[in-house]
C-alpha cells in the first residue's frame, strides 16, 4: 500500500491522513523525524508546550525481511537539552508501523484539561481514545493490560510515571516480541509524550505488508548482508556476553568513568562484567541470547533472572550497568538489575538517571555504593513524584546545580555516557559536537580507539580524532535512517560486502538507484539539518564544549586531561 503520514492534533483531538510530500519520500527513521521537526517545530518553542511535536518513524527498511531493520525513531525538541532529538529503539513497533503503510506519525498540539488519552494506529489511520484506568501505572502494567484489552500481538509504545510527570529523564518504552521493554531512552522524549497527555500508542498492522519493488534483488542482497553480520566476530561476542562485554576492556583501557568521573578504573569491574553476567544468566536458567525484534541476527539482548530463577530484566546494557555500577560505585549486579527493572517500569533513561545519582552522591544526597538507597529513592520518591523524586528525574545537570557540584558530566545538559573523554579522546569530540547533547551512539569512535574495529586510533592522542568522529557521525546519521540497528556498523566497518548490500536492499525495496555517495550525502544533510535547528534555537559553537573539570582534573590511571581547544573542536563542522 502507498505510504502515508498520520497526523494527530491533540489540541482539537482530530486525526488526519496525508500523502507523503515528495521531499520526504526518500527519508526514514532519524532522517525523517529530524526533517519533520526542523520543518514544523519552532526552534525556540518550549519543549513541553503546544508548539513542540512528537514524531515517530520506522526506518526505510523496517517491516521488510532485512536483517536487523526493526528500529523505530522518535524525534522532537528535547526538554532535557533544548536541542533537536532523535532516540531509537528496537521492539516490534517499527515493523508494525511500516506494515500498516505509516511512514511517520506526527503528534502536535496539546489538550486542555486533565484528561489522558491513548492512540490506536491501524492501516485506516490513527484514532484517539480517552484513558483512565492505566494513568499512574508503570510500563509493565500497561503492557499486561493492553495485551488483555487488545491482543498480545499489537505493538505498544508507552510512558511510565516519569513521562506522565514530564520529568526530563523520562523515556518512551517500546514492547519487544516477548512483552519486555526496549527504550527510546535519551533526551526526555517521554516527557514530551506526557505533555501531549498520551499514555500509550497501540499499533496493529492488520495483516498489511511492505511492498518490495524487486524481490529477487532484495533477497539476494539481504542474504549477503545477513551473512556479513553473522560472520563478524563482534556479532558473535554480542550474542554471548551482550554489550556488557565492554566493562572489562574499557576498565583495562583506563576509560571506565568511576565514582562520578573521578577515576578511570573500578575495583568492582569483574563483579559487574559481561563475563560474570553471562555465567549468572546460564546458572539461573536465563537466556544469554535474545532478540529485541524479529529478524535480528545478533541477539545482544538477554533474559536476566534473579537468584530464584524469576525474570528480572532484559536488554541489560553496558551503559546502564556502567552507570548504576562503576559511576555510582555499586559492584552488585543483582542490585543493578533491580534498578534496571524499576527504570523500565517507571520509564526513565538509565544513563541520565544513574549519572544523576553519581552527581547526587558527590553532592552528599546519598553515599557512593548505596544501592539500597538508590532503589528506595526510585520507588518511594521518583515513582511517587515527591519533590526529591522530581529533582532526581530532572537530570544530572540540574542536580549538580542544586548541590553546588562542579564535577557534572553533561554536554548540552545531557549526561555523558560510559567512556571517559580524557582517556578516550575521540569520543569526547562526539560528545561535544553531537547535535543531541552527549551521546556515544552518535559517532562511536570507541570501535576504532579501543576495539580496533574499522582501523586503529590512539585513544590518548588528539591526532585524527575530529575527522574520525565526523566520519562516524555522518555514517551513523545515515544508518539511523534505514531502521537498522547501529550494531551493523561493526560488520560494515570491516567487511566490504556489508554496506553495498545494505544500499542494494534500499534500492530493491523502492526501485531506485542510490549510490554510496548518496548515502554519505544523506548523513551530511541530516547532521546539517539538526545543527541548523540548534543554531536557530539559540545554541552556538560555545555549547560544543565539554565541562571545565575535564581540563582541570587528570584522570587516573593515565592522568590524562581533556586538551582540545575550542578552535580544534569547531573544525568538526567543516564539511
Amino acid at each position, binding site marked *: 500500500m502507498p505510504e502515508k503520514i498520520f497526523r494527530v492534533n491533540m489540541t482539537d483531538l482530530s486525526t488526519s491522513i496525508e500523502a507523503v510530500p515528495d521531499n520526504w519520500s526518500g527519508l526514514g527513521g532519524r532522517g525523517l523525524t529530524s526533517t519533520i521537526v526542523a520543518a514544523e517545530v519552532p526552534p525556540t518553542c518550549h519543549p513541553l508546550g503546544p508548539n513542540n511535536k512528537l514524531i515517530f518513524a520506522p526506518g526505510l527498511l523496517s517491516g521488510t525481511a532485512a536483517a536487523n531493520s526493526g528500529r523505530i525513531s522518535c524525534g522532537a525538541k528535547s526538554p532535557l537539552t533544548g536541542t533537536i532529538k532523535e532516540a531509537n529503539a528496537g521492539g516490534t513497533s517499527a515493523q508494525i508501523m511500516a506494515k500498516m503503510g505509516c511512514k511517520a506519525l506526527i503528534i502536535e498540539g496539546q489538550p486542555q484539561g486533565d484528561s489522558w488519552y491513548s492512540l490506536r494506529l491501524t492501516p485506516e489511520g490513527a484514532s484517539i481514545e480517552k484513558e483512565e484506568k492505566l494513568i499512574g501505572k508503570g510500563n509493565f502494567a500497561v503492557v499486561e493490560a493492553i495485551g488483555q484489552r487488545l491482543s498480545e500481538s499489537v505493538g505498544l509504545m508507552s510512558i511510565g510515571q516519569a513521562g506522565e510527570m514530564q520529568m526530563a529523564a523520562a523515556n518512551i518504552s517500546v514492547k519487544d516480541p516477548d512483552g519486555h521493554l526496549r527504550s527510546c531512552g535519551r533526551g526526555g522524549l517521554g516527557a514530551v509524550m506526557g505533555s501531549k497527555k498520551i499514555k500509550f500508542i497501540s499499533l496493529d498492522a492488520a495483516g498489511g505488508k511492505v511492498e518490495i519493488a524487486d524481490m529477487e534483488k532484495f533477497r539476494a542482497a539481504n542474504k549477503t548482508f545477513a551473512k556479513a553480520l553473522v560472520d563478524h566476530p563482534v556479532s558473535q561476542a554480542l550474542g554471548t556476553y551482550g554489550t556488557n*562485554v565492554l566493562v572489562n*576492556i574499557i576498565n583495562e583501557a583506563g576509560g571506565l568513568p568511576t565514582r562520578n568521573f573521578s577515576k578511570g578504573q573500578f575495583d568492582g569491574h*569483574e563483579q559487574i562484567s559481561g563475563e560474570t553476567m553471562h555465567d549468572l544468566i546460564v546458572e539461573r536458567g536465563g537466556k544469554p541470547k535474545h532478540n529485541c525484534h524479529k529478524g535480528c541476527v545478533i541477539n545482544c539482548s538477554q533474559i536476566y533472572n534473579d537468584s530464584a530463577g524469576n525474570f528480572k530484566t532484559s536488554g541489560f546494557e553496558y551503559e546502564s550497568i556502567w552507570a548504576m555500577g562503576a559511576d555510582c560505585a555499586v559492584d552488585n549486579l543483582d542490585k543493578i538489575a533491580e534498578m534496571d527493572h524499576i527504570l523500565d517500569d517507571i520509564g526513565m533513561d538509565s544513563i541520565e538517571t544513574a549519572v544523576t545519582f553519581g552527581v547526587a552522591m558527590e553532592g552528599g544526597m546519598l553515599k557512593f555504593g548505596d544501592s539500597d538507597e538508590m532503589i528506595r529513592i526510585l520507588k518511594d520518591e521518583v515513582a511517587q513524584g515527591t519533590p526529591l523524586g522530581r529533582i532526581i528525574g530532572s537530570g544530572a545537570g540540574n542536580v549538580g546545580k542544586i548541590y553546588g557540584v562542579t564535577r557534572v558530566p553533561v554536554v548540552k545538559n545531557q549526561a555523558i555516557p560510559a567512556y571517559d573523554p580524557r582517556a578516550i579522546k575521540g569520543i569526547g569530540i562526539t560528545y561535544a559536537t553531537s547535535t543531541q547533547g552527549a551521546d556515544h551512539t552518535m559517532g*562511536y569512535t570507541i570501535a576504532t580507539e579501543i576495539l580496533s574495529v574499522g582501523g586503529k586510533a590512539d585513544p590518548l592522542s588528539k591526532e585524527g580524532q575530529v575527522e574520525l568522529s565526523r566520519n562516524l557521525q555522518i555514517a551513523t546519521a545515515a544508518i539511523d535512517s534505514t531502521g537498522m540497528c547501529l550494531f551493523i556498523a561493526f560488520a560494515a566497518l570491516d567487511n566490504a560486502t556489508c554496506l553495498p548490500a545494505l544500499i542494494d536492499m534500499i534500492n530493491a525495496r523502492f526501485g531506485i538507484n542510490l549510490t554510496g555517495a548518496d548515502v554519505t550525502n544523506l548523513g551530511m544533510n541530516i547532521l546539517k539539518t539538526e545543527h541548523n535547528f540548534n543554531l536557530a534555537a539559540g545554541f552556538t559553537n560555545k555549547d560544543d564544549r565539554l565541562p571545565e573539570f575535564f581540563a582541570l582534573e587528570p584522570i587516573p590511571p*593515565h592522568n590524562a586531561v581533556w586538551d582540545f581547544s575550542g578552535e580544534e573542536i569547531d573544525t568538526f563542522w567543516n564539511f
Partner: protein
Amino acid sequence: MQVQVKLFAFFREGRFKEEGRELADNTMVGQVVDDLGIDREEVGVLMINSRHCQFETVLQQNDILAIFPVIGGG
C-alpha cells in the same frame, strides 16, 4: 622476569582469568599468546599496562598483559 597475564571473554574458557607467569627476558607478546594456545586470528585487542600493543611488543618485568578476543558493544 615476572609478567601478569589477564584473559577476557571466551579466552578464559579452559584457561584462567589472571595468572602470574615467569618469562624469559625479551619475550614478545605474540609468544605468550601462542603459548596459551590462542589463535592470533581471534585476538582483537592487546594491552600492556592499559595501553594498546602489538604481537611484536617486547614485555618488561612486572608488565600487565591483557588479551581480548574481537569484541564490541556500545
